[in-house]
């Protein structure tokens, strides 16, 4: 080629062959792209399918058994028609109430500590072990609670079940509290301190109040999770065929009742199990919705212009 001259040349045979191959290859590559799109979309559909099926069956098989009697009556002995799960519904409410009584203060307190002592050695260990606690299988929490609270006392109790569930709530509440408290700007704390607020007062009244919406959400979300747990209750609350609201006695709970009825050989009880499952899901749904509404309501302080 002569230097200094730029000439456009006709593509050589080799160049033509390469671009021809590229054009054909592009078609193939585009086909692959299309196939993958379909495959992935299928994956999405298949993933959501079980959810649809489960909800469908729950409603189909459970809704018909839901009447007032279900909510107000006790379970009937085998063979007799009717009966309900009143004791289990109340029992669940009591047990998750106990769980909150135990898990909430520890979770919020730990969360406050973590937020105020960021890099401290103890804070990092607590954060790490909180994750460990979160990952412990629920059956392990159950046998722990049995060993620690049932065995020495000699009998099952609602309290031991509440403690097992409460312990499972702690990591999430602590994490949410820490995150929410961190979002409170330092300038707010400073303003309170400059007014003569003590640190404890600043933490509890100013910081916690500002972060409360998010914390409430975290508490309710973790509550929704433990409300459906069965394994920790198997050897703690144990279940109770009779009406009992005592926290030092065994107590019925929805998940336990559903389990017992489901594995029984009686059709009647199967029917009740479906109904119970529907109620349980509804309860979890209600708690989740309240969590979301509670967050929004906080910010709607009256404008009154």
């Amino acid at each position: 080629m002569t230097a200094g001259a730029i000439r456009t040349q006709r593509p050589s045979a080799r160049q033509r062959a390469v671009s021809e191959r590229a054009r054909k290859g592009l078609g193939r590559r585009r086909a692959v792209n299309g196939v993958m799109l379909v495959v992935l979309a299928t994956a999405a559909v298949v993933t959501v399918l079980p959810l649809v099926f489960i909800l469908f069956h729950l409603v189909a098989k459970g809704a018909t058994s839901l009447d007032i009697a279900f909510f107000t009556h006790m379970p009937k002995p085998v063979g007799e028609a009717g009966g309900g799960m009143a004791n289990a519904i109340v029992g669940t409410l009591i047990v998750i109430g106990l769980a909150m009584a135990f898990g909430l203060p520890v979770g919020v307190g730990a969360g406050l500590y973590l937020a105020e002592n960021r890099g401290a050695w103890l804070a990092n260990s607590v954060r790490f072990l909180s994750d460990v606690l979160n990952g412990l299988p629920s059956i392990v929490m159950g046998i722990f609670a049995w060993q620690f609270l049932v065995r020495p006392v000699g009998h099952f109790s609602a309290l031991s079940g509440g403690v097992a569930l409460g312990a499972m709530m702690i990591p999430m509440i602590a994490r949410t509290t820490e995150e929410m408290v961190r979002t409170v700007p330092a300038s707010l704390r400073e303003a309170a301190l400059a007014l003569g607020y003590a640190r404890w007062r600043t933490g509890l009244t100013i910081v916690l109040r500002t972060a409360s919406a998010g914390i409430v959400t975290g508490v309710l979300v973790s509550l929704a999770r433990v409300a459906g747990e069965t394994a920790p209750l198997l050897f703690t609350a144990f279940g109770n065929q009779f009406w009992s609201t005592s926290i030092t006695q065994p107590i019925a709970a929805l998940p336990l009742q559903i389990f017992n009825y489901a594995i029984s050989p009686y059709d009647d009880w199967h029917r009740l199990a479906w109904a119970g499952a529907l109620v349980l899901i509804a309860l979890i749904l209600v708690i989740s919705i309240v969590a979301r509404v509670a967050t929004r309501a906080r910010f709607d302080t009256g404008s009154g212009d």
Partner: protein
Amino acid sequence: MSGSSVSPAVLMADNGPGTVVRIHGRHIGDRVYRGAITFFAICVPLLVALVAWEIAVAGWPTFRHFGLSFLTSSDWDPVKERFGAAPAIYGTLVSSAIALVIATPLAVGVSVFLSEFAPRWMRQPVGFLVDLLAAIPSVVYGLWGIFVLLPLLRDPVMPFLRDTLKLGSTPFFSGPAYGPSMLAAGLILAIMVLPYIASVSREVLLAVPRAQREAALALGATRWEAIWRAVLPYAKSGIIGGIILGLGRALGETMAVTMLIGNRQEISASLLAPGYTMASLIANEFSEASSDAHLSALMAVGFTLLVITIIVNAIARWLVWRVGGGAASKPL
């Protein structure tokens, strides 16, 4: 008028030179507050230590008596007081493996679809539906499994796999198929574990910087090629972390598995045969544990499960954390 009484007149008051400025005092309030939150914080490691301790102590007699054979022997006989947890350990690992094999492609597939291909408006609702899978309690999965999944497996699925696809000639699908089986347990576990893998994958994929995708696309790659060559390798360790997180969940699942696995102490190669997992073993036999030895053996199983779960979860957290903090920050 003391310096600290408050009335409108005081706003303009002249606090004269004789006014006592009460500026001395103690701050107990702060000390109590700090003590209280430190106490609550310490409760967390205390609780973990307590759980491990109580179970270890209760299970120790079994470990001491049987030693390592506890983990390797298949002989579980409460009457003769011989305890080998191998079938249960085997079952836990196999059912979890099945779950991961099924759930991973689906979960990663959904996540890739949502973050790369699907129109923006789809992300929230479909993502929400996938997350909803995690909200369904284990016992409800078990209930549905017993009355919907098992009949479905018994006829037509299992006969189809064994006879029509001729998979019955392999050891993995041989033998009678009544329904309750490792396969059933693996399937339900797959559904339960899917949302966890999907959630982590979604976060990790969204965290991949746009520049990666754009660079690939600018070079003329198709959408899929950009994902396969540029995005997925970047997100790989995070996604693997999510998979291991799902593994951690699968290992500890109790209720749904108990209701679907058949609860038989047997190591069988066939997926169509019933089996056992550590969690369902405890759930089934704990209430009727006849002797102290039996109880201790179950506690030993619990301790084994505890240790395995802690290790697996630690690996998962480390992997996800390595990719970039955010994805690991939301416990499910």
